[in-house]
């Protein structure tokens, strides 16, 4: 099928370039279509470059964001779905309104706020913005609402506290939702570009996205096309693995958003 070829061609091209010696590509990038191929560029990425450091930063930031979102949204989702407190409905609507706020409406003042708090070039500075999105709260609230109330009422009669019911009875039932929200949060944090671009200005705090952008901008001075492409392949491997492992959750979550 023509479409599949058009889709795959850029990926194959990248892979081919990454397997060629830089000197050969300098002469003519058309040599990428023929042997000899080499793993030299990958060796260079693994040895000399900052890519490992950036990979580690991306892992820390994405995992931190994911854990933070799961904790905050599970607590809030349970609260909004099950408990009575003053202004509950108003607060829920107030949170949902946040879904309509695009990033560029807040990113500038947030940059100043984080500067005043000395949070730039730090892991909390990279993680915190990812925790404020209201989608997870909406998602978890819907999920908690779908669990039959008889379950908590039975536990309540046994004298269990709210926190205990939440932790022991309901939370284990939300595991599929946790997986879906977790994967999506991880992907979004991993691929976020604008915020880390302006918040992490020092190379040792770059995430992979920002690091690769800087490598791309300095392309003329770097060690060559093959090396750059090997870096791109290296950088996309972790996320492609996450995608392959969690394909089911991703597809199910997308199907869920289009429902109704």
């Amino acid at each position, binding site marked *: 099928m023509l479409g599949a070829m058009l889709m795959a061609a850029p990926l194959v091209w990248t892979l081919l370039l990454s397997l060629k010696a830089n000197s050969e590509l300098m002469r003519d990038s058309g040599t990428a279509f023929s042997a000899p191929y080499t793993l030299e560029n990958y060796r260079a990425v693994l040895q000399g470059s900052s890519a490992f450091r950036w990979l580690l930063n991306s892992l820390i930031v994405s995992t931190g964001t994911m854990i933070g979102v799961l904790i905050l949204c599970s*607590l809030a989702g*349970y609260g909004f779905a099950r408990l*009575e407190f003053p202004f509950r409905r108003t607060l829920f609507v107030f949170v949902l309104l946040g879904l309509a706020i695009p990033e560029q409406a807040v990113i500038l003042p947030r940059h100043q706020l984080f500067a005043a708090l000395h949070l730039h070039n730090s892991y909390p500075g990279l993680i915190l913005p990812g925790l404020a999105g209201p989608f997870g709260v909406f998602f978890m609230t819907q999920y908690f609402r779908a669990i039959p109330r008889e379950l908590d009422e039975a536990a309540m009669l046994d004298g269990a506290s709210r926190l205990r019911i939440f932790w022991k009875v309901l939370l284990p039932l939300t595991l599929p939702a946790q997986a879906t929200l977790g994967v999506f949060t991880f992907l979004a944090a991993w691929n976020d570009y604008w915020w880390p671009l302006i918040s992490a200005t020092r190379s040792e705090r770059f995430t992979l996205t920002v690091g690769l952008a800087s490598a791309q901008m300095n392309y003329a001075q770097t060690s060559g096309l093959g090396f750059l492409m090997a870096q791109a392949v290296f950088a996309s491997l972790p996320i492609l693995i*996450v995608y392959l492992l969690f394909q089911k959750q991703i597809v199910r979550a997308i*199907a869920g958003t289009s429902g109704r």
Partner: protein
Amino acid sequence: MTAGRPARRLEGLAFVTPFLIVYLVILIYPLLMGFVLSFQRADLFGARTFVGIDNYARLAADPVFHQALGNTFKLTLLIVPALTVITLALALALNRPTRGAAWLRGLFFSSSVLSVTIVTLIWRFVLTPDAGLVAEILQAIGAEPIPFLSDRNLAIPALAVTTIWWSIGLPMMLFLAGLQQIPEDIYEAAALDRAGRWTRFWRITLPSLRRTVILVVMLQTAAQLQLFGQAQLLTAGGPSGASRPVVLFIYEASFVRWELGYAAAAAEILFMLVLLVTLAQYWAARPREGE
């Protein structure tokens, strides 16, 4: 039971408070500050003076901003209809329980998990005239390489193609999910009526997918109005601003020229545009009579 009531009621608040604090400090407070900032002149050192609607007046007269706004609309108009049609066609073609179809769905979705930096890195060396894939193919058939990224008429289409390649996965999956929800018996009834493929598509499939189409168009419109990374990395908005979208304008005004108030005003205008699209989606997707 009644004795513990006030405490019980506050218990509920305790569950939602941690999120609310983060939400207020990191989303709502900056949103309000941005609004205030758009009526100020501010510099790098934090000096602020109120200037009323000066920033907005300046935007209204700034040809660079007009150009950026025009580019954003062009990109959105190029990307959204093409993406909608392509992904709907793909979903129709791949809505089969075979292994091959599953494999192709995986291929078409795979680009969407890549970050914008990887996507632009890949496409830079597909499009660049001195080492790109397209240039190699053109040379192989004896044609001249085309400098897509530095030609003022080709930069925006190049960005559009890159973006379509990158964003194809999500709408395709949304359409596939929509197709799964159409009950089989409608098609069986249509088959009895000897309805052709086209009739079935126009009379059954498309009307059943109405909400998905609206969702895809609106999500993509909101996303493409905010297109940023591709333009910053592939063309840097050039040549001479010919492919600079509004978000890149905001980025340059704030983090390159440090005109914070001016950038904030531009951000507010884009926010209003995105908000309009979001509201239009709710309006268009509202349940109609008989549904």
